[in-house]
């Protein structure tokens, strides 16, 4: 009895910090529609600020709590900076740009924290006066846990009062319902957004700070909490604070009791719960269906045009150059270009899903890794020859995409994106923890190509031919009837349904096709490196793909290729600097602010129209009504 009660109370205690962080994310999303990936970084900053402040303000219960509050406010100020300097300029841009910008912020904060506080984990100070235990049914229970249990509902109450009893709160709620209407009624939106962002950041900071007495401040906290916070927000319903609280308690209790029953299930359990809830209630426990933004936010989509004659010549020149490359450069450049080609195929497959299908996936790496693992498992367990394994890799990924896609296409917009993220995490957790089959973190090794293809130049040609064929196939599909049908579902699902297109099936087919192509890239990757590890399925890998697509520009079909090249080159150039993450983060933010069309888009915009790279764009574009742009 006592044990279960203690377990239950522990669950409630860990729910508190989680709730604080998640409620901040939820509030920010509800009003500004920004999916703030930097939220984990705010949580981490809260812990570091709290650590330093508690040390400086000295002992005493008052000093401790004041320090935590100041830490929270300081994080709020950092949030203010991020909002005013970066995000404010992007509210009109497609949501994906905000997402990528916040990803840049993650990198910057990581390096700044490392520079200031150093690499070592900082053990959190204990709360003065609350460091002892009480006995509940003879089971020792830390007093601080009881304090945490109280803090969660207190903050919830405070937020409720703020949103229901103050004018500002009412405006925030109104903005959550209908942003444009609030703006039309003369409310200063940008001030409202800034305020909400600061509040959300401060909550994340507080969450990071109050967990100090139970743990530490370390450099892995930002990504560590991110997935969990997302799950809580989505399960609770985006924008709902009560939902976030409910979900935080539910997930913490599930974790706490889960380990009693299934010690090996840590990690996976949470995502299974999320998937189940989203299938039963697609908008989360207390979420409401999205009134605006039924479509995924890739921005105003222009009509994609077939290549013009000059563009074809341009592509032919590039291909000829690539074909001659082994004669021109040394082996290392070949390895680098092989990497670029593989990533280009990967990015193009995601780009297809996003631009043609209008489906933004946050978990596309599941299929890249899925293909890599399919090939590696075939080689390891069935001694499959290289050629066959490479051929089957995309089908393995496709199968995975079929299962995941079946669940995901039932949702749309940001919920779709979140569910893909969750499933990618499930896939990653399974691979990471099911070490009997996948060898877990130690990976599958010795996945080398057959002898004839193992030379650097030969394998370069293999990758070149396969990747180019894959990219052309994707391009072909865009202009096939299937591609046009898919665009119809993207642009107007009602009309598409009216002319007899089975929308869900069309989307599922697109999802599987993109998965197959990502799997092909994954297979190429596995054989180029000789080994496969769970990292290839991880969240950062999915981000890489999004980054490449965004770098290249969502609008142009050749964008992802440009993006993959730019991404690899940037990485390679910056890596020699000690603070390369800081630089990369700044570069990402600058690119998003300066080139909202991406590099490919910008190049096309400035150079392309003089070179006539597209079939007479002016005429067609003016004849086609643009999709309505939302604020």
């Amino acid at each position, binding site marked *: 009895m006592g044990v279960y009660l*203690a*377990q239950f109370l*522990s669950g409630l205690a*860990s729910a508190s910090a989680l709730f604080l962080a998640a409620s901040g994310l939820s509030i920010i999303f509800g009003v500004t529609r920004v999916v703030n990936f930097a939220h984990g970084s705010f949580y981490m900053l809260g812990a570091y600020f709290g650590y330093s402040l508690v040390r400086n303000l000295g002992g005493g219960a008052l000093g401790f709590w004041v320090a935590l509050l100041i830490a929270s406010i300081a994080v709020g100020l950092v949030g203010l900076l991020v909002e005013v300097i970066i995000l404010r300029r992007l509210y009109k841009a497609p949501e994906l740009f905000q997402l990528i910008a916040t990803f840049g912020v993650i990198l910057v904060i990581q390096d700044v924290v*490392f*520079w200031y506080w150093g*690499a*070592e*984990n*900082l*053990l959190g100070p204990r709360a003065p006066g609350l460091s002892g*235990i009480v006995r509940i049914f003879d*089971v*020792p*229970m*830390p007093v601080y*846990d009881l304090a945490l249990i109280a803090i969660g509902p207190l903050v919830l109450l405070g937020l409720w009062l703020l949103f229901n009893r103050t004018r500002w709160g009412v405006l925030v709620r109104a903005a959550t319902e209908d942003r444009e209407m609030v703006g039309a009624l003369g409310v200063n939106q940008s001030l409202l957004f800034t305020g909400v962002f600061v509040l959300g950041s401060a909550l994340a900071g507080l969450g990071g700070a109050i967990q100090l007495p*139970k*743990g*530490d401040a370390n450099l*892995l906290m930002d990504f560590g909490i991110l997935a*969990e916070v997302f799950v809580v927000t989505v399960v609770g319903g985006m924008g709902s604070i009560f939902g976030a609280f409910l979900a935080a308690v539910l997930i*913490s209790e599930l*974790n*706490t009791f889960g*380990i*009693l029953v299934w*010690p090996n299930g*840590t*990690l996976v359990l949470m995502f299974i719960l999320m998937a189940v809830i989203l299938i039963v209630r697609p908008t989360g426990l207390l979420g409401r269906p999205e009134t605006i933004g039924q479509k995924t936010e890739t921005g105003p989509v222009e009509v994609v045009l077939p290549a013009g004659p000059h563009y074809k010549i341009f592509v032919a020149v590039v291909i000829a150059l690539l074909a001659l490359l082994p004669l021109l450069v*040394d*082996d*290392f450049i070949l*390895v*680098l270009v092989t*990497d670029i080609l593989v990533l280009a195929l990967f990015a193009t497959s995601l780009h297809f899903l996003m631009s043609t299908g209008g489906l933004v996936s946050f978990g596309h790496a599941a299929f890249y890794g899925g293909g890599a693992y399919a090939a590696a498992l075939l080689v390891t367990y069935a001694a499959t020859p290289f050629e066959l394994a490479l051929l089957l890799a995309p089908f393995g990924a496709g199968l995975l995409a079929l299962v995941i896609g079946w669940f995901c296409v039932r949702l749309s917009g940001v919920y779709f994106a979140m569910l893909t993220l969750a499933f990618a995490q499930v896939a990653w957790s399974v691979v*990471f*923890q099911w*070490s009997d089959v996948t060898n*877990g*973190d*130690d*990976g599958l*090794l*010795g996945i*080398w190509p057959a002898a004839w293809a*193992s030379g*650097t130049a030969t394998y370069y040609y293999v990758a070149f031919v396969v990747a180019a064929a894959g990219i052309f196939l994707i391009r072909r599909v865009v202009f096939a009837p299937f591609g046009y049908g898919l665009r119809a579902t993207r642009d107007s699902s009602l009309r598409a349904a009216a002319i007899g297109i089975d929308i869900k099936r069309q989307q599922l087919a697109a999802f599987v096709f993109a998965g197959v192509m990502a799997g092909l890239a994954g297979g190429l990757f596995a054989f180029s490196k*000789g*080994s496969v*590890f769970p*990292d*290839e399925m991880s969240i950062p890998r999915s981000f890489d793909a999004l980054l490449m697509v965004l770098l290249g520009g969502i609008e142009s079909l050749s964008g992802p290729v440009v993006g993959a090249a730019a991404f690899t080159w940037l990485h390679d150039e910056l*890596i*020699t*600097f*000690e*603070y*390369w*993450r800081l630089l990369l983060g700044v570069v990402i933010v600058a690119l998003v602010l300066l080139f909202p069309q991406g590099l490919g888009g910008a190049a096309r915009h400035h150079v392309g129209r003089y070179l006539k790279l597209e079939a007479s764009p002016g005429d067609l574009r003016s004849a086609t009504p643009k999709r309505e742009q939302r604020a």
Partner: protein
Amino acid sequence: MGIRKVLGAAVLAASVIAPGVAGAQETIRIGDINSYKNLPAFTIPYKQGAELAIEQINAKGGVLGKPLEIVSRDDQGKPGEAVRYAEELFTKENVVLISGSLFSHVGLALGSYAGQKKRLYLAAEPLADSLVWAQGNRYTFRLRPSTYMQAAMLAEAAAKTGAKRWATIAPNYAYGKDAVAAFKEVLKAKVPDVEFVGEQWPALFKIDAAAEAQALESVKPDGIYNVTFGSDLAKFVREGTLRELFKERTVLGLLTGEPEYIDPLGPEAPEGWIVTGYPWYAIDTPAHNAFVEAYQAKFDDYPRVGSLVGYNAMLSIAAALEKAGGTDTEALVEAFEGLELDTPAGAITYRALDHQSTMGAWVGTTTVKDGKGVMVDWTYEKGGDYLPSDEVVKTLRPANGG
């Protein structure tokens, strides 16, 4: 300050890139790949140790009449990147071999690469047993005592405690599983009637320490074998202490005594745990004293395990180059097999049998002194004494592993 650091980094980067052509002929270049950004608390000491060794070797005139030079790359903790940099180091920077890496998966990827491309790789810190066993190959050697060796040292200590009912807690991934499996195997062989009454597998760096501590408490073990580390360890120690989990129980901690892991715990370091680690402050041999003195003089910091491993790695490479009499890879492989050298940790040998060095570890009991966790009553256990018999090792390595 910040700007100066960035500028310094830029100058440093430029100086690494620029003299590549000029220095290629006069120096012997050693490729170094490590996760400098992902786990700086572990890899920076490694790098410093390596730098110290290189400085000392070059002060004595280098090796084969040429100074040694390290060319470093950051793998970002990604195996794919590590393999790419390996290729770059060999083809563009003309390194004679590569060394380094901390993460097991990165080490394994580099080992596989070395075997495929027939290039030499000295794995300095990765612990995975398979690196030199199941996935072993002719071109991969490992310096640090492996998971199996360190777990076996603790299992021997566990057998002496008399505790029979054991519970384990380990992060749910390859290293944690290896560490538990090896511990169980060795302890069962020594004490046939031990019982394993509970296993907990928190997700790496996502421990729910309160719940895990309760779960361990509920099975009432005599002894607890802990493999968690980093922030997981800090949380586990806190919750476990508060909830009286460690009271009147034998607790073992794998690697817990290494400065990298115990120092962040400060005054809250667990007391009375039997751990493997590195009591650098108390090892009193001339060779080790000289090492600590030189290290502190150069970096104004004390050495961690990583420092010692980095230092020993460079000593090993220098010794192998001397023995081979040149930089030819095949000659270096032959030189490494059976290579004997003296290090601050004592004499070590790279076993020809499985390419594992016999560098050992220190086993002792933790206590808190002056607000810091330290090891007392420790002994240095030679790595060679904690490996399975040669017959068993032979079955563990692939037939063509050389």
